[in-house]
């Protein structure tokens, strides 16, 4: 489960070497921040929640048994800290996919291809932020964690079969949000 390097790092932190902890933070901070940003849709809040996540990781490192990958454990704490933060909010994002029409992927693809790479990345980021937090979190974990549903099963504590259904719905919602953003370009392309 744990590599020898990770085991040594954890032992060093447990002995009270707080500086060794910064090594662990630097390894996981980008994915933790991306996950919190996608789930919360706000940079300042995402940074705050990422900090809270690592403080929780530091405080509970003593109880970490090492029966899962350290990344799995860190992302689980990040995901749950985000959910706690979302629960405090008054409004939550809902997106109904039941009534959605079929998508024309070729037209969406063409519209996206006409954009500069940075612009495309920014647009996808904006669309992810419009999804319900659980969907944005699931898509982020799936596409940045080597597309391993087994790993995500351990992080979210949801069976693989349910994850497949959730992932399908999340993809559909993202396509719907993207379609809404790309409509003007698609209309322009169609003349």
């Amino acid at each position, binding site marked *: 489960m744990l590599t020898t390097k990770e085991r040594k790092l954890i032992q060093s932190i447990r002995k*009270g070497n707080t500086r060794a902890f910064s090594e662990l933070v630097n390894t996981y901070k980008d994915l933790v921040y991306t996950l919190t940003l996608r789930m919360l849709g706000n940079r300042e809040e995402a940074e705050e929640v990422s900090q809270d996540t690592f403080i929780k990781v530091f405080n509970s490192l003593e109880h970490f048994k090492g029966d899962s990958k350290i990344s799995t454990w860190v992302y689980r704490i990040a995901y749950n800290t985000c959910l706690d933060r979302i629960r405090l909010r008054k409004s939550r994002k809902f997106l109904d996919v039941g009534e959605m029409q079929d998508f024309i992927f070729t037209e969406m693809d063409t519209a996206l291809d006409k954009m500069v790479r940075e612009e495309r990345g920014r647009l996808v980021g904006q669309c992810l932020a419009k999804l319900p937090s659980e969907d944005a979190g699931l898509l982020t974990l799936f596409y940045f964690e080597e597309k391993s549903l087994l790993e995500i099963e351990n992080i979210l504590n949801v069976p693989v079969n349910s994850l497949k259904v959730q992932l*399908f719905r999340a993809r559909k919602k993202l396509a719907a949000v993207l379609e809404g953003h790309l409509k003007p370009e698609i209309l322009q392309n169609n003349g």
Partner: protein
Amino acid sequence: MDEQQNKELEAFIDKVMGETSLESPSPDFTEKLMAKIETQSQKQVFVAHPLLPKKLLTFLFLAFVAGFIYLLMTYGLDSSQGWFKNIQWNYDFSKTWSWMEGYTASKATLYAVLLFGVLFFVQIPWLKRYLDQHGTLG
């Protein structure tokens, strides 16, 4: 959505998500976090816990005061009464240190003692640096 559309959707989202990259927090993220953690650790280290519980300390203090008052009321301040009279107040300390009168130290011994004193103080900054880097002597 039919099977074909499902596959198209998956391929499309795979491509779209491939356009995104990992976001980075602010450049001083780790420094800020470590400062918070170090403050928190110091707080944990410097929390003072008395060796004896507060109740026991209060009881011992009250017992001492009560005993003192009892002795005072029974014997007063007169040192010629009770067990006070057994204490030899004019104790002569000069006998204890009389062996020092004839003692002389060689220069080598003197320098050795001085060097030992200097080295004792030299190891303090060295130990401090070691502890700062490793967090523990173990």
